[in-house]
Each structure stands twice: as structure tokens, then as C-alpha cells.
């Protein structure tokens, strides 16, 4: 079983210069409207897309053929863990295979989000083989408007 932390995501409090460089590179590429493309790392499953809006992070993964029961999700602070097993049901024992490209197996992945999330409000949905986890950004890390009072 594989366990890998995606450590090169933007994260507050880290001052690794290489990471900082990577972050700048990503910001630059975003500036050119190309989005953030990350080469998939070997040995990681599933591949994930992470997006954000004002209130939430959205983590998505393509997991065709899985049921909600085959998945195990947990969240702590700013970390999301996904593990599970993809099972391919046994077919007719007399079946003669011409092609066998789909794979079964176990997987486990831990991702660190850019900020803390409200763990009690996290929701997960599974539609057409695509998992979507909606993680509301914690109120404590959201920017707050401060009004200046005139004395």
C-alpha cells in the first residue's frame, strides 16, 4: 500500500527555497492562463485535481467503477486522506479475454490543502465515477474586513 504526502503544495509556514521557486513558477504559469499542471508522480493513485473558490476547496479524482462503500475518506486540519480498493468483479469463468487493460488494486493517498478546513462540514459525492470532496475553508483562516473607526 502506498502512502505519500504531497509536500510541494503551497503551505503557510514553509520556507524551503526550492518550494518557493516552484510556487512562483506555478503563479507565473497561472498568470499566462495555462492553469497549474503538475506532472503526475509515479506510484501515486488516484490522480487529483484541486480547485478553490471563495469558500471551499474541491478535491476531485476519477475512480470509475468504485462504490461509495469502497472508499475511505478522513480529514484532519488541512489534510485529506483517501484510501480504498478498486475491485473488478469476476466474470464468467469460461470467458476468454481479448483485452485486459482495466486494473484492480488498493490505493491510499494523503494530500495537504493550502489552508485549514472546517472538518465537520466536509462533504463527499460520487457521480459518474468521479469523486468530489468539498472542503469548506475554515472561518479562522479566511480574510476579514477590518473597519477603521474614526476617533
Amino acid at each position, binding site marked *: *500500500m*502506498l502512502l505519500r504526502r*504531497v509536500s510541494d*503544495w*503551497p503551505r503557510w509556514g514553509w520556507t524551503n527555497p526550492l518550494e518557493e521557486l516552484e510556487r512562483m513558477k506555478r503563479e507565473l504559469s*497561472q498568470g499566462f492562463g495555462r*492553469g*497549474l*499542471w*503538475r506532472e*503526475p508522480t*509515479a*506510484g*501515486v*493513485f*488516484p*490522480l*487529483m*485535481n*484541486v*480547485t*478553490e*473558490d*471563495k469558500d471551499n*476547496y*474541491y478535491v*476531485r479524482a*476519477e*475512480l*470509475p*467503477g*468504485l*462504490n461509495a462503500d469502497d472508499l475511505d475518506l478522513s480529514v484532519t486540519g488541512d489534510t485529506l486522506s483517501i484510501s480504498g*480498493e*478498486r*475491485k*473488478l468483479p*469476476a*466474470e*464468467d469463468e*469460461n*470467458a*476468454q*479475454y*481479448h*483485452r*485486459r*487493460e*482495466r*486494473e*484492480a*488494486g*488498493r*490505493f491510499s493517498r494523503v494530500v495537504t490543502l493550502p489552508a485549514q478546513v472546517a472538518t465537520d462540514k466536509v462533504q463527499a459525492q*460520487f*457521480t*459518474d*465515477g*468521479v469523486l*468530489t470532496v468539498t472542503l469548506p475553508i475554515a472561518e479562522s483562516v479566511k480574510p476579514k474586513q477590518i473597519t477603521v473607526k474614526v476617533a
Partner: protein
Amino acid sequence: MADVASKALQAKEKAEATTPAEQTRPGLVFTPAVDIFETDKELTLLADMPGVKAEYLNIDLRDNVLTLDGEAQSPEGPGETDVVREYRIGNYYRQFNLSQVIDQTKIDAELKDGVLRLRLPKVEAAKPRKIAVKG
């Protein structure tokens, strides 16, 4: 088969399709991973097409060429911006030459959780038949 079940899955980048026909639609086209197996009665095809809804999937069989054409709808909302992108969303396209004679009226397709299951029953004439030899 216990060792197969406990195998760790490895992510594979989706393979871009090399279609013989020129693309007229925008977007990427991928080759879906398939399993094809055959029994005496039928041919079964399983294809991984995550993100494709039944109404956006076209299955076509003519002149023994089976074409799968699925359009994946992005689940992302309009207000979302990228944080990390590891996989791409696009369409699925794949063609197969079927050597067996398929009974076109009995083809049955089911799309569930992003997996297409296509049953292609063989015509009666193509099924092996035992011939009793009288002594």
C-alpha cells in the same frame, strides 16, 4: 486471486487517442481502458469512462466496426480556480473491429459509475452448436 486484489494501484496518465478521423470538436480525446472477453453466447466490453453521462455517450456499430464516443462533462463550477491539476478532462473515443457476427438487435449497454458495460450477443449462426452423430 488474493495477490491481485491487494496490489497497489499505480496512476496512469490518460492516453490521448490517435483517431483516424480528424477532430472537429474542441477538447482533448482519450483512449478509454477496456476489458473485452468472449463466451460462447456473447462478447462483453467494459470501458472506463469517468465523467461521462449516459446521454453524452454514443455507441455505434456498422460494418463490424464498433465506435465508442463519450463526452465528459467537467464537474467544476464556473467560480473555481485551479490549485493543482494532475489529470485532464476530455472526451473518450475508441474503435474496434468485431470479427464475430453480432446480433445488432440484442445489443445492451449500461453505464454505471463511469464504467460502460456493453453486451454484444452473437447471432445464432455464429454460436457453436453440438451436432449429434447418429450411430
